[in-house]
């Protein structure tokens, strides 16, 4: 698997757009939710789809119950004349990974990456149960909240964190989300106030769960000199990697995220200190972590060795809006935006998939390209 972009053409995020993230898109279908986002992401850099060397999307047909729904979604982009196009049945962050590898190796200069998902069309818990081990686990129908609760209990039992720590994560996320016009769950509440919430599935109280979210997002990537032409401060991707853990939940230590740590190492933002073996985050001003459940942010912080100086999820994170197939790509867009708007020199974005942080992607971003700066 490719890791840091040593010797290859550097690639940058040059444009990012997202819809408002809402509980229910009743009046618009996938194409109608997506289309204004695609228009927006092009307008920000004055490009059209005819200038895209590659288009890659991420979505899940099970969300709306329509086979090949990703094909009809191309109506929002415009599929004529023929273009180079690909799709992953995954979060858009993994589609971005595919576009990133193409741009480094290839003669194309730009790529459009987008993802969309309306989680409100069915019972999301049932849909997500279908991704589990079909022999040993899925017939028992443990929904994602129950599995996350098992993980949270294991984390509490490890003695590292308490329910009050989960509430503190949620309080900070909601407060930060006040500054995010697209966020869904926001508010000024203290952790102490949130501790008054009922349990949904113990030990997870209401605030420790993500909202159910409908929405769409899009990013434009550009390689080499083209990135600098299109954007005053491109967010250069200095490394990216993704790793997956076994599907056997019992064979995993749910209180840690070894694949996040390894992806972080490969992306160049985590070093494993001598002796202790504890991961240490390096060169990260801002981290956008795709932690759908509050306790998962704590697991991810530890796996990436993020210290107190790092601003975590200034957008509000997935607790403020968790579009399935969307929230991971939004993390990359939000992290890149902190570089593009000048508030950060370096950033890290993380995306996850599967039960209890099974699969993890880490994308490192910086105001300068990696290595010798060759474009």
């Amino acid at each position: 698997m490719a890791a840091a972009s040593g010797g290859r053409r550097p690639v940058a995020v040059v444009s990012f757009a997202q819809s408002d993230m809402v509980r229910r898109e009743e009046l618009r279908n996938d194409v109608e939710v997506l289309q204004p986002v695609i228009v927006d992401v092009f307008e920000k850099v004055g490009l059209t789809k005819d200038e895209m060397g590659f288009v890659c999307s991420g979505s899940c047909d099970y969300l709306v119950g329509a086979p090949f729904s990703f094909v009809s979604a191309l109506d929002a982009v415009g599929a004529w004349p023929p273009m180079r196009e690909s799709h992953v049945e995954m979060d858009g962050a993994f589609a971005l990974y595919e576009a990133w590898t193409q741009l480094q190796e290839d003669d194309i200069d730009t790529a459009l990456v987008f993802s969309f998902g309306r989680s409100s069309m069915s019972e999301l818990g049932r849909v997500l149960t279908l991704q589990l081990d079909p022999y040993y686990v899925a017939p028992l129908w443990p929904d994602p909240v129950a599995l996350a609760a098992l993980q949270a209990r294991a984390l509490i039992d490890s003695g590292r964190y308490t329910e009050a720590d989960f509430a503190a994560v949620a309080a900070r996320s909601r407060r930060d989300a006040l500054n995010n016009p697209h966020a869904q769950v926001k508010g000024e509440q203290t952790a102490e106030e949130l501790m008054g919430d009922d349990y949904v599935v113990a030990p997870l109280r209401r605030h420790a769960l993500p909202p159910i979210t409908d929405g769409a997002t899009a990013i434009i990537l550009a390689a080499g000199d083209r990135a600098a032409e299109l954007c005053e401060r491109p967010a250069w991707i200095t490394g990216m990697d993704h790793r997956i853990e076994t599907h056997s939940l019992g064979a995993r230590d749910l209180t840690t995220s070894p694949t996040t740590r390894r992806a972080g190492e490969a992306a160049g933002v985590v070093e494993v200190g001598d002796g202790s073996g504890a991961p240490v985050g390096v060169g990260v001003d801002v981290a956008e972590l795709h932690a759908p459940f509050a306790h998962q942010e704590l697991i991810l912080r530890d796996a990436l060795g993020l210290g107190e100086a790092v601003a975590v999820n200034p957008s509000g994170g997935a607790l403020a809006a968790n579009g399935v197939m969307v929230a991971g790509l939004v993390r990359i867009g939000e992290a890149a935006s902190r570089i593009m708007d000048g508030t950060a020199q370096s950033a890290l974005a993380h995306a996850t998939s599967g039960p209890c942080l099974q699969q993890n992607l880490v994308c490192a971003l910086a105001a300068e390209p990696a290595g010798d700066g060759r474009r």
Partner: protein
Amino acid sequence: MTRFAESTITFPYKRSLGPVVGAFMTALTDKRILGIRNGKDILVPPMEWDPTTGAELAPDFVEVGPVGTVESWTWVPTPSVQHPLQHAFAFALIRLDGATTPLLHAVDGGSSERMVEGLRVAPRWRGTRVGRIDDIICFVMGEVPETDGGDTGAAQEPVQRMDYHASITYRNPVPAATDRAVVASRNRRLLGLRCPRCERVYAGGKGYCPVDAVELGPECEVDLPTVGTITNFAIVTPVSYPGQTETEPFVRAFVLLDGTDVVIGYSPVIELPADEVRVGQRVAAVWASPAEEHDQEGGMGGAWGSLLGWMPNGEPDIDDPDLVNRIF
């Protein structure tokens, strides 16, 4: 006022189990629980591959439990209809005696106050076991396994397959363009939408021009001819699968509407036997009578409304070798 279409999709999977999962499931019918040896570890449930290195594991099975210890648990206060128990219960990671890794299963714990890390639990077996993980209904407190109802004994043959039926109900909003097309079909009208930019015309309630990515509203509507020519077709020989209602070979044809660029694909043909369909054949639309109209499906379903398909109109064939290329 948005209209919603509710639909339930069922996934009737039949899964082959292979030698490792199959051995585990076969043992369940005999009320035995197997792990697999991986170096010093005993993995339960058994896996085909080392979860860390991916190395293939030899089929070296070890019987474990059936009694075990709760390592972690979560309380489910309001079960869904699919859950193993229909009253409040716990999902737990249970390390069976002799195992290195815990098994995920349900515990009938009575109340959450009684659940605790370190709790000893034993399986409650189904009386009739078929070789599925839910041959164990759940685990119960204590050291003594139970069997629910009369015990019909172990499977006579190794278990090689399992059924897994999942279903999901969707409630999707129907786009306005689709609704307008359905209403028009009730009056024997085939509605098209003309893109103001590229002039292309779309049928089937498609509310977007996929070339220009612009929305096509009511102001773009045009009436399409209901006569056309078959440009291509397929004869589908049905195989039996759940939900397949066809039993005889049937035709799906592509119809180019007269005087337009519009091709309607995958259309049924009516009063036209499969062995008589030809490229170039002239056909006319067939509409459902009001008595045949369903809420949202004619012969073609969705935005086609009352359009059932196409029937020969008696005109002579069109002889044009390029016709076969017109499938869109």
